[in-house]
């Protein structure tokens, strides 16, 4: 027994000491962010500039963030929620107002994305990066089957779906799928009329037998490999899928299709958590990220949309020219940001969603 105890102690000590943990810096900025949502060079440059350490933890879903904050988790400085999550956080009084005097670079942001309905005057949030929820497709297969790629009908209309049965996935998100269905039917993505929701649910149920899965996590992989030919997905992911397909020298490209009926625009924002340990570092970070070149690095890395006008000169030309990432004004007019729903509306939507998925 004694030998075991000694051995256990040795093992634990060895494991605890190696690899050497980074030296405990007195100045730490706790950034709660999506994975791969900031370029490593950007972080390093900020750390050098502020002489501090950026400690990143990750979430992969706005709702995970909301649940954790609602349950009382503390210790984060900067978080990067999407607009509807920002709305929920503001109403739940979980954010700290921003000291605009420390954010001179805020003027770089395109006016269209400032002063939103959920955060008038940008009291709590500043835009960071954007993406749209659109159609992604295997260009060879779509050409071969003669299917349109600029309309939601290819996801919802059985006459198109019959040609790609079992090769289509849609996002496993009630908000996103209902928004797409509402757009397909010609309504606003933020329409809350229960009758319209019933219509949307009916459209989804009609198309469901042709879909392979409701999937938000592994669909990009399957698209890149060629098992899935058509997806309802996020523009960043589809951009990345194309890079991967090219790297693997596949005989097709993965392209982004912006539906003419319009789509959901997701703007991710930087916010400060109420009670953040280092709001000063948080504001310094935000100002740093509002600077043109720093902001451009993420776009060049993952093909995300960018609300920062000062970043445009630094963005790679092919990304700058991509209409799905930087939409033309006509298309931009049809993009909508999702609004948060009331508790009663969420309940109704959940009932509809459960019926769609269970039957």
């Amino acid at each position, binding site marked *: 027994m004694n*030998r*075991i105890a000694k*051995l*256990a102690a040795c*093992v*634990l000590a060895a*494991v*605890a000491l*190696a*690899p050497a*943990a*980074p030296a405990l810096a007195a100045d*730490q900025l*706790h950034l*709660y962010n*999506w*994975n*791969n949502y900031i370029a490593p060079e950007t972080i390093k440059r900020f750390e050098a500039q502020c002489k501090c350490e950026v*400690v*990143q*933890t*990750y*979430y*992969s*879903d706005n709702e*995970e963030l909301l*649940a*954790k904050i609602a*349950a*009382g*988790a*503390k*210790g*984060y400085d900067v978080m990067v929620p999407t607009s509807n999550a920002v709305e929920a956080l503001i109403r739940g009084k979980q954010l700290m107002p921003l000291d605009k005097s420390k954010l001179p670079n805020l003027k770089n942001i395109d006016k269209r994305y400032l002063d939103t309905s959920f955060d008038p005057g940008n009291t709590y949030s500043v835009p960071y990066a954007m993406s749209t929820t659109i159609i992604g497709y295997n260009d060879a297969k779509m050409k071969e089957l003669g299917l349109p790629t600029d309309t939601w009908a290819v996801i919802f209309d059985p006459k198109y779906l019959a040609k790609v049965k079992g090769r289509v996935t849609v996002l496993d998100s009630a908000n996103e799928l209902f928004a797409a269905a509402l757009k397909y039917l010609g309504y606003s993505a933020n329409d809350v009329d229960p009758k319209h929701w019933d219509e949307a649910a009916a459209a989804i149920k009609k198309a469901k037998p042709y879909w392979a899965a409701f999937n*938000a*996590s*592994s669909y*990009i*992989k*399957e698209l*890149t*490999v060629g098992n899935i030919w058509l997806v309802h997905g*996020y523009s960043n*992911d589809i951009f*990345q899928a194309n890079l*991967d397909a090219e*790297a*693997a020298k596949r005989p097709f490209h993965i392209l982004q299709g912006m539906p003419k009926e319009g789509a959901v625009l997701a703007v991710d924002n930087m916010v400060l958590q109420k009670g953040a340990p280092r709001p000063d570092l948080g504001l310094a970070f935000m100002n740093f990220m509002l600077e043109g070149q720093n902001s451009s690095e993420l776009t060049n890395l*993952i093909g995300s949309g960018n609300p920062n006008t000062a970043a445009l000169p630094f963005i790679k030309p092919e990304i700058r020219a991509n209409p799905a990432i930087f939409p033309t004004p006509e298309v931009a007019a049809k993009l909508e940001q999702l609004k948060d729903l009331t508790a009663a509306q969420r309940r109704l939507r959940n009932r509809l969603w459960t019926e769609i998925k269970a039957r």
Partner: protein
Amino acid sequence: MRKRRITLAKVAAAFGYAFLYLPLVIVVVYSFNDSRLNAEWVGFTLNWYRTLFADDDMLVAARNSLVIGLCASAVSTVLGTMAGFAMHRWKTRVLPILVLTPIAIPEILVGVSLLIFFVLLNFTLGLVSVAIAHIAFCIGFVAIVVRARMAGMDESLTEAARDCGATPWQAFRYVTLPLIMPGVIAGALMAFTLSIDDFVITFFTAGAGTVTLPLQIYSMIKIAVTPEVNAVSTLLMLLTLLLIVIASRLSPSLLRSQESTP
């Protein structure tokens, strides 16, 4: 006759091992895959191992997972063995329910409720809060296995020891424990496995700077779970195997059950 029965079981067992290892072979092989995605074989490369050793975040996460796993399985094995022993010996009413419920309750509820609880107590979240949470749900697994092992055990040996003058602790330590050791080991292995792979509960109880391997990996789920994850998993498996082999060499009796010889 006997040979034939063993052969049929052995064939079935071989299929069982094949079933277990087919995905694992893919995991290990794909750690050398020259592609960002875990989807198709493209070419051979050692790049991902190089990336792994340069990736401090991933290494720290792996280290945290290992430390929490060892601690959680150690503590839950001790507490679980006590619970399993008590459940068998004294047939208590409350203990089985208390021990089984953490297994039955959905993880997300456990995670959220523990977070609320820790916040109420103003307990700083970090590695310790995660370990506490892991221990809570691992105890049940150990207890169930230990109790199953003790079922039908020959009590006469323990009683004989007591009659010879042994204290209850001595009777347990020198008679009962060696007899139930395979159950205890099985429970410890299960507890460790559960702990290093837990995501949901860890997500909610981890602090602002705490990362474990599942947290790190699941956050990659929507972008790409690169072969770096295969690499770290392969190494973690080998490391754990090594630790156990070393432990069993230093204490040969640990992994084998004692014969009940006079």
